[in-house]
């Protein structure tokens, strides 16, 4: 259920006994996602979009890129992580092309999907802890941003803010 309906139901539940606070009437559209916060250089941002789009691609359902996950990652790295961690992500983004060149003789952007997978899965198993940490953080944040998006929550994960209920023992839906 979206926020507007949830707040309407809140008003009904309370029978108009209280006035609706400011936080309920402002800031309806939380989806006005920025595309960039200026934390990354353009080239870094492009590489981040490629990697995020490879981890959770677009298909007949929306992927991470169209849900604004790259900008979410940028926001998180800028605000929530210590500088060395964010720097390591920048270094990882810069290394990705070099590794693609070395493995497949072309830029990461020009690699086939299978080649991109091979490169990123290689990071996951790499002995190079910097590369491994870089990919692990980018992947985890991508999953976090994707699975908490309004689209995934409401279309796939049965998100429902209110009203709710609890039944302790119901048959499993086939």
């Amino acid at each position, binding site marked *: 259920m*979206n*926020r507007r309906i*949830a*707040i309407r139901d*809140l008003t009904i*539940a*309370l*029978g108009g*006994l*209280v006035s609706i*606070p*400011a*936080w*309920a009437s402002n800031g309806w559209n*939380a*989806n006005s996602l920025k595309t960039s916060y200026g934390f990354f250089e353009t080239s870094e941002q492009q590489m981040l979009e490629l990697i995020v789009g*490879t*981890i*959770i*691609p677009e*298909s007949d*359902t929306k*992927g991470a890129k169209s849900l604004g996950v790259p900008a*979410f990652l940028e*926001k*998180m790295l800028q*605000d*929530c*992580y*210590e500088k060395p961690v964010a720097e390591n992500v920048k270094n990882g983004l810069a290394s990705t092309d070099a590794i693609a060149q070395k493995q497949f003789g072309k830029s990461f952007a020009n690699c086939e*999907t299978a080649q991109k*997978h091979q490169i*990123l*899965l290689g990071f996951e198993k790499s002995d190079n802890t910097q590369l491994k940490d870089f990919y692990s953080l980018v*992947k985890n944040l991508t*999953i*976090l*941003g*994707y*699975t*908490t*998006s*309004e689209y*995934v*929550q409401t279309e*796939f*994960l049965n*998100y429902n*803010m*209110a*009203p*709710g*209920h*609890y*039944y*302790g*023992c*119901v*048959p*499993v839906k086939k």
Partner: protein
Amino acid sequence: MANLAIDIKKQNTYDAIVIGSGISGGWAAKELCEKGLKTIVLERGHDIKHITDYPTAMKNPWDFEHRGQVPLDVRSQYPKGRAAFLREETLPFALKDGIQPFVEEKPFTWTRGYHVGGKSLMWARQTQRWSDLDFEGPKRDGFAVDWPIRYADIAPWYSHVEKFAGISGNKDGLQELPDGEFLTPIELNCVEQHLKQVLAKEYNNKRHVVQGRCAHVTDPQPIHLKQGRAKCQHRNLCNRGCPYGGYFSSNASTLPWAAKTGKMTLRPFSTVHSIIFDEKLNKATGVRVVDTNTKEMIEYYARIIFVNGSALNSNLILLNSISNRFPNGLGNDSGFLGKFISWHNYRGKISAEYDGFLDKMTDGKNPSNGYVPRFRNLHSQETDFLRGYAAGIGAGRGSWSSREGIGEDLKNSLLHPKLNNQWNVSSWMMGECVPIEKNHVRLHENLKDPYGIPQLVTSAEWTDNDVKMVQDYIEQFTEMFTKAGFKNIKASDSKSNPGADIHEMGGVRMGNDPKTSLLNKWNALHLCKNVFVTDGACMTSTGTQNPSLTYMALTARAANYAVGEMKKKNL
């Protein structure tokens, strides 16, 4: 000048002062205002108005800029040790660093709620009654001092607060967990029911699983609607503040009720420094307050004072209330003020899996949990440790998504979580800690907080009795889980700090004898009868039950007694 001083004194004079606006302070305010007393409620933190000041209450996961994680620059304003608990969702209720430093002589976790409503906005909302098996504990087992009250003294007050607060639960007919005034219960799920049946059969009907009684309005009665509260929506977002008033808090319930009488003045940003004692009158006449914004010291006066600052702060205020008559703290001729600090033993945890009921699942969210009332040493001593433990218990089916791989496969897995192939069961112990004199709080000789108030020194540690109890919990629950057919049983001792349970109690204990206790059976100081302490500080022993309901009942009882005594001109 003289007239001005008289005017200010008049302006700052009330019938009653309530120190603290948390779960017990809210009840003091409600009862006193309802009885017509002009009451000032002093709260050291900022105001939190019901609904208006719950900014995260209706936010969806995607509305949080950092999806709950707190940015570094904000995080740096909070104590380092608490960083792991900070979330964007509950940040409005977190305590910033430096507000009230204290000295941990031995490691102690002190969780505080410094805002209007206190911890009533952060509590687990479990509300179990005490029985005489708890009140008689110290006398039977020879520790602390005898409680000056029994179940019969408090039972009508449990009913009084339950009806108003709204408590859901089953009437289970157990002597050790008396029934109350209950709203529709939340149901136990298939696995919790299964455990209930197994325990009844395997232990001769002496061990029970019941639904935890909890302060959720499952079917609002006229008294709840009158408070502006609605049915619990099972959102399980309680710790953000509930705009429905679905669970009980001072903010949703007692404080607005008190305000409606027109008798209440609520003063946030007011840290109480000490209580003023008048030697000629032989009673307290008011309190000294530091305005936390201006650091100005202001005095308020009243005929009675309710001390509800949360257990350790109530100790601190009394210890700091020094006069010629009471050089060791108000009412402290006995020397026991600040001693016999106790808490609950939450160290033992156990988890398991169950592969029955695979054709069943739960639907929706459960704001409560199952509850195993104390079964150890209930009627006589059976083990090599004193007292016993209750336990919380919860089972759930849950679902999961593989996070392995990349691309379409990963995406499909994330979009289509699978129901787990087993139920997960977990339990946590809630043990009675036996209070000992050595566990205490006191004022630091020279360190002060930012308001010029001496810092509190906490000196408390676990005893052998506690350690043995953890071991017994682990053994007994492993056995019970095994009998229930649970698998992959994992038990552990968290060895958490004292206080981590957030149930710190004692220091200003109740008792019959002024030589060994601070408070009489009405929660008034034996030696200063117009000062009442009705929060966790008054607890002579700790029981195993979540204590808030008992604080509420003791507060309502004491407040009504105080009003009666005022009418009789005894106060």
